[in-house]
């Protein structure tokens, strides 16, 4: 891969997804793009990248998806989910008691494990049994990842990464060496392909946004824009959940007494939002 070809690739990725591709990622790009080159009938990655800077849309999409990181697991890092279950959910049931409505968005859900983990916690809380309307929206840039998430079929290896055995028996059905998420849980999640660089308008107002370990890969301009849109999408007392090592934008402050990665809107940003929403 020549430096010029790599620069074209990095430029396209930044424009399409906000992802930053630094030169040290060249070996990674080579290994991830080899299957894409094969899929589209190119001799190799160099031939594939010769299509740049203006590849066909399906090639650009496949390359973008191949370069995104889909690392995930059920109840990944455990602490954020324990905090959601033990602190946030009880508080939200009090704060939203009058509307009995809760809207949660997993903004970079990859192959679905994070959304299904939250669905399990919501199912255990049995809010639906008390006439609550819960919207659990899960999006990802990768159409392939979303297709897998909708399918809800996971390998033996995947279900053992973070999923307690009792939860596996309760929420999954075994199909040979694979495990399928039961319909009850799948019906709780609305999956959709969505690019965080696009307009968030269709989402409406959200109470809790999980956007863990994705914005850290964005260039600064895309990251600022994404934080602004996340702020506009959150209700004034909503919570943004980032990865434990991520830092929020100026309009967010770390949530008090919460694990690292939990943010609320700063007082000024929240007041401004409350005035605007009337």
């Amino acid at each position, binding site marked *: 891969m020549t430096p010029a070809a790599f620069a074209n690739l990095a430029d396209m990725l930044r424009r399409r997804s906000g992802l930053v591709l630094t030169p040290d990622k060249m070996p990674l790009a080579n290994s991830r793009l080899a299957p894409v080159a094969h899929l589209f009938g190119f001799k190799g990655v160099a031939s594939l990248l010769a299509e740049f800077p203006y590849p066909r849309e399906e090639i650009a999409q496949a390359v973008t998806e191949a370069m995104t990181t889909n690392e995930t*697991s059920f109840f990944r890092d*455990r602490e954020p989910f324990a905090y959601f279950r033990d602190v946030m959910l009880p508080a939200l049931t009090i704060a939203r008691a009058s509307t009995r409505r809760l809207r949660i968005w997993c903004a970079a859900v990859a192959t679905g494990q994070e959304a299904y983990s939250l669905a399990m916690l919501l199912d255990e809380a049995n809010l639906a049994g008390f006439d609550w309307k819960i919207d659990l929206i899960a999006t990802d840039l990768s159409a392939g990842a979303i297709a897998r998430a909708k399918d809800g079929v996971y390998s*033996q*290896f995947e279900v*053992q*990464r*973070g999923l*307690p*055995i*009792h939860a*596996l*028996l309760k929420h999954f059905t*075994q199909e040979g*060496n694979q495990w399928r998420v039961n319909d009850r849980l799948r019906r709780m999640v609305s999956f959709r392909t969505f690019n965080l660089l696009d307009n968030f308008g269709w989402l409406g107002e959200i109470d809790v946004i999980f956007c863990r370990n994705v914005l850290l890969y964005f260039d600064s301009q895309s990251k600022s824009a994404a934080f602004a849109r996340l702020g506009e999408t959150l209700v004034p007392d909503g919570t943004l959940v980032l990865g434990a090592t991520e830092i929020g934008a100026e309009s967010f402050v770390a949530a008090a007494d919460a694990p690292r990665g939990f943010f609320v809107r700063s007082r000024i940003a929240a007041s401004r939002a409350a005035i605007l929403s009337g």
Partner: protein
Amino acid sequence: MKHCLVVDDSRVIRKVACRILESLQFVTEEAEDGAAALDACRTKMPDVILLDWQMPHMTGIEFLRTLRRQNDGTTPIVVFCTTENDVGHITEALNAGANEYIMKPFDREILEAKFAQVGLL
């Protein structure tokens, strides 16, 4: 440091599991079947037992039932680690008092995750 008894009739599996557990700061001990595991427990009760199912002399499930009858019924923590990967076996193990269940093959990540789930990490 927590003490883990690794019970498996495969020497290779025992060595692999012990190596991973020692890297997670466990003190390990090995037993090659259920009978040897009971002897080890009589000498010194471990904090956790990683337990295979199919073994000569005494199977994992026979060992677990004996252990739960003899002890206070809840300790030590027992994590099955077996190729018996169907729902029937998993349910049987949990009903017999297993705390967690690992379906072989396993790796460090799975072992670490399962031990964390039962509060050992």
